[in-house]
């Protein structure tokens, strides 16, 4: 028992640092995803045909391919483009990304596609009569969307969005394949150091589980707080 606690004392500080990286990547990617997801969802519903088409292609492409492959295209693939551009005299050093930046961008773009879908179904759940009413009251289409539709849709999207938070924390674990020092990568490092794969993986698993369950219960609270009284009845009928 004492031996076990001793071992835990040795590995926990390292895992804690990994956890911070995992949470940092999750937070950045979720935020990036939100910043991409909102305009994408709007474009898919209200945009002109060609923009709708581009937004749909982006969403389908990122939802239809594995995150790991997206990560590889961005981390290993983009430098190829930079080299090709250099060949024709265009310098594009911004295409050569560090591991961490690749992780942010891959996870952010991936999450953006999913968040756009959540938001799209939330927007579509809002009665179109509301936009007509807003237009009849003299609002522009943009005003109707930002003042009437989005304030409701963003709240309606919260349940789906809160699932995305838990998913994101779990999915960040793929970044260990490009040696970003997240929780899983630190665990792997400790395994090669102490050669106790099962023990360390179980500790890593427990940490993930606690974080995911903790975040889920926080998000459930937020869901309850932000629920619009009576609105769910309207969407049920629709």
């Amino acid at each position, binding site marked *: 028992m004492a031996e076990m606690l001793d071992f835990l004392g040795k590995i926990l500080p390292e895992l804690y640092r990994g956890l911070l990286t995992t949470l940092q990547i999750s937070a950045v990617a979720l935020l990036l995803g939100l910043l991409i997801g909102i305009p994408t969802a709007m474009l898919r519903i209200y945009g002109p045909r060609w923009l709708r088409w581009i937004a749909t292609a982006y969403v389908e492409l990122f939802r239809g391919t594995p995150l790991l492959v997206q990560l*590889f*295209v961005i981390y*290993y*693939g983009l430098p190829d483009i930079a080299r090709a551009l250099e060949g024709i005299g265009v310098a594009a050093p911004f295409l050569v990304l560090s591991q961490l930046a690749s992780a942010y961008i891959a996870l952010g773009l991936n999450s953006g596609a999913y968040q756009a879908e959540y938001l799209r179904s939330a927007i579509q759940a809002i009665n179109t009569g509301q936009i007509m009413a807003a237009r009849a009251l003299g609002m522009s289409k943009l005003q109707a969307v930002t003042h009437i539709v989005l304030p409701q849709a963003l709240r309606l999207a919260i349940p789906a969005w809160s699932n995305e938070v838990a998913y994101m924390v*779990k999915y960040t674990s793929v970044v*260990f394949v490009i040696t970003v020092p997240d929780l899983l990568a630190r665990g792997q490092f400790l395994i090669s150091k102490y050669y106790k794969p099962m023990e360390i993986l179980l500790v*890593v*698993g427990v940490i993930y589980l606690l974080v995911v369950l903790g975040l889920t219960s926080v998000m459930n609270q937020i869901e309850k707080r932000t629920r619009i009284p009576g609105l769910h009845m309207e969407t049920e009928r629709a």
Partner: protein
Amino acid sequence: MDKLPDIVRSLPYLLQGALLSIAITVLALISGFLIGLPLALLRVYGNKAASSFAQAYSVVLRGLPSLVVLFILFYGISSVIKIPPFLAGCIALGFCSSAYQMELLRGAIQSVSPGQMLAARALGMTQVQAITAIVLPQALRLAIPSWSNEAAIVIKDSSLVYAVGLAELLRRSQQVAARTYQSFIVYSLCALIYFTMTFVTNRGLDRAEKVFRLPTPMEEAH
């Protein structure tokens, strides 16, 4: 661009990798279903202990990253019994999928009206008979749309076994990329193959749903 013929020559190698990915997916889905269905039944019809066991199983497995489950089971399975890494990978992926399949099957089972179970029992069927003859034939049909989602997710997650060293599509793409120094083209090609697989799966199961849909509208489902 001079590497292009080289990449084209690698195409059969990549497509074989895609076949392996499909094999991994199918085996993982089947083992996930075989674990998930009994657990879903326990969750709905089991006594308190069995039901909470099934629930705990689902919470734990859905709260862990698939990669962590994969590593734990892969090491675990390989250290207990000697089976080929390919099978160990499939089964591990199946466990990851089982908790999600359990949840979607539970939803489908619960959307069959409980009155049907009562009616079946009143007609003298045992609970097992009622489940296999009345509830499941409807529930499994209802589960097809969410099951098709899960199938697409498992296709994508099959790329995770890359991390335990199986030579599936992603691993082979990496080999080709390393040989041709054309990462962007090769990984984009790899993405395209995955996209085709998830797309065809979704469309195929959409069709399956239409074919197997019950001719009468199911009022209870709404």
